């Protein structure tokens, strides 16, 4: 009796795994000797079979059922950190308008007369200093005041920063790449700054591109809401958030006028940098051209 390719084909799997009974094995081998196509098929199956030896059944079982407790803990860890703290930042373009939530937990005062603008939240942080604009280098002190608001994950941020190969500070937008970044410094004559208890505004001469960013925090996650105007629909944009201590995150990527914007035209995304640690926002095109920088005083 001769065996057909179809019959042999079905036996090649168990043959490749060495599970075929001896009598059938002989039949298969006889067919294989005269059939190049079935030999090629066997070769493929044997190749697949070699992968089986790389793992144990226990491995497969673990992969199939990762401990759900870990997910629960990750989610509930977030829940515990959820706070009612709310920070409103109104930032207008090429410039900044920084409105620190009037009548909310936040007040703004100009405590470091020349360059710095301290932002303080009555509770729980006594005085989370943020760095105004791009002039961060000279004012690195006083950061520890923000510690009380730092959620449990913040220390990991620091640890992680070490692991990240690039220096976050060096990624700050350079003045040459962003007309707005020079106008960001409170001491810069190009910008006008009005300080009120609840709001800080500044405007530069261009103002073609405008953005308003609002940040709020819940469960340790900062929600950032950005309304960007003066940028053509269809432009792919990237929102980056910079924080003190070299924190830096890409909070999201979206298309202007696209589906990612909500009904009011805002792009809403999240970052894990707490609002009080945010030093600036940057909106750039997908290709990296900075459209606008929104420093937080």
């Amino acid at each position, binding site marked *: 009796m001769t065996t057909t390719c179809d019959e042999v084909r079905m036996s090649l*799997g168990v043959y490749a795994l060495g599970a075929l009974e001896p009598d059938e094995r002989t039949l298969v081998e006889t067919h294989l000797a005269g059939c190049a196509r079935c030999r090629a098929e066997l070769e493929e199956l044997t190749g697949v079979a070699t992968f*089986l030896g790389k*793992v144990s059944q226990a491995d497969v079982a673990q*992969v199939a059922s990762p401990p759900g407790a870990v997910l629960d803990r*990750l989610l509930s860890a*977030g829940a515990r950190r*959820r706070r009612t703290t709310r920070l409103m930042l109104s930032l207008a373009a090429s410039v900044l308008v920084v409105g620190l939530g009037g009548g909310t937990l936040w007040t703004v005062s100009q405590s470091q007369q020349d360059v710095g603008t301290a932002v303080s939240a009555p509770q729980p942080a006594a005085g989370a200093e943020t760095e105004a604009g791009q002039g961060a280098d000279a004012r690195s002190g006083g950061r520890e005041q923000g510690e009380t608001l730092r959620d449990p994950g913040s220390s990991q941020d620091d640890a992680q920063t070490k692991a*990240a190969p690039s220096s976050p500070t060096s990624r700050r937008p350079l003045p040459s790449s962003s007309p707005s970044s020079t106008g960001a410094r409170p001491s810069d004559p190009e910008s006008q700054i009005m300080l009120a208890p609840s709001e800080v505004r500044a405007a530069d001469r261009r103002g073609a591109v405008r953005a308003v960013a609002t940040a709020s925090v819940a469960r340790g996650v900062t929600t950032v809401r950005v309304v960007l105007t003066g940028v053509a629909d269809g432009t792919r944009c990237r929102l980056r958030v910079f924080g003190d201590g070299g924190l830096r995150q*890409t909070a999201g990527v979206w298309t202007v006028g696209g589906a990612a914007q909500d009904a009011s035209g805002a792009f809403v995304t999240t970052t894990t940098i707490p609002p009080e640690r945010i030093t600036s926002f940057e909106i750039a095109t997908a290709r990296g051209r900075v459209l606008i920088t929104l420093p937080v005083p």
Partner: protein
Amino acid sequence: MSQAGTADEQLVRALFDEHGGPLYGYVLRLTGDSGRAEDVVQETLLRAWRHPDALTGRSIRAWLFTVARNLVVDQHRARSSRPPETGDEALAVVPAEDELERAVESWAVAEALAALRPEHREVLAEVYYQGKSVREAADALGIPAGTVKSRTYYALRALKLALEERGLAP
């Protein structure tokens, strides 16, 4: 904003669903302790979640494995700074850099197997991992011998696809 919580949860769930299994398996093998493995997985995913930047432009899986492995190494060092013998022993289970790639691959294989249909996994378990013959497997599974053959064949074909999906070409 409730949306934030939802988006946030979605990200955590996505990370966990996509990488939790292989990551846990890998870490469990390093630590040999499920409690510690869970802690390391949790910490690793937390870092990934907090640092989406770190994940761009490279293999997320390799990044996660690297972070997890470093956490395990750190734990070993912290634990064994007193008795050096224990430390050497403990560190011996931590793979060298070049083994990372192999670990990522192995766990992708496990993942590919886990993605197979249950009857395919089942027949491979009998025929390959238990080393049973077609007849023995047929008896164990209560199915005809012919079905063992065809199922094994289709299981290997499906595995080939699952491996290819993960960039592992047999």
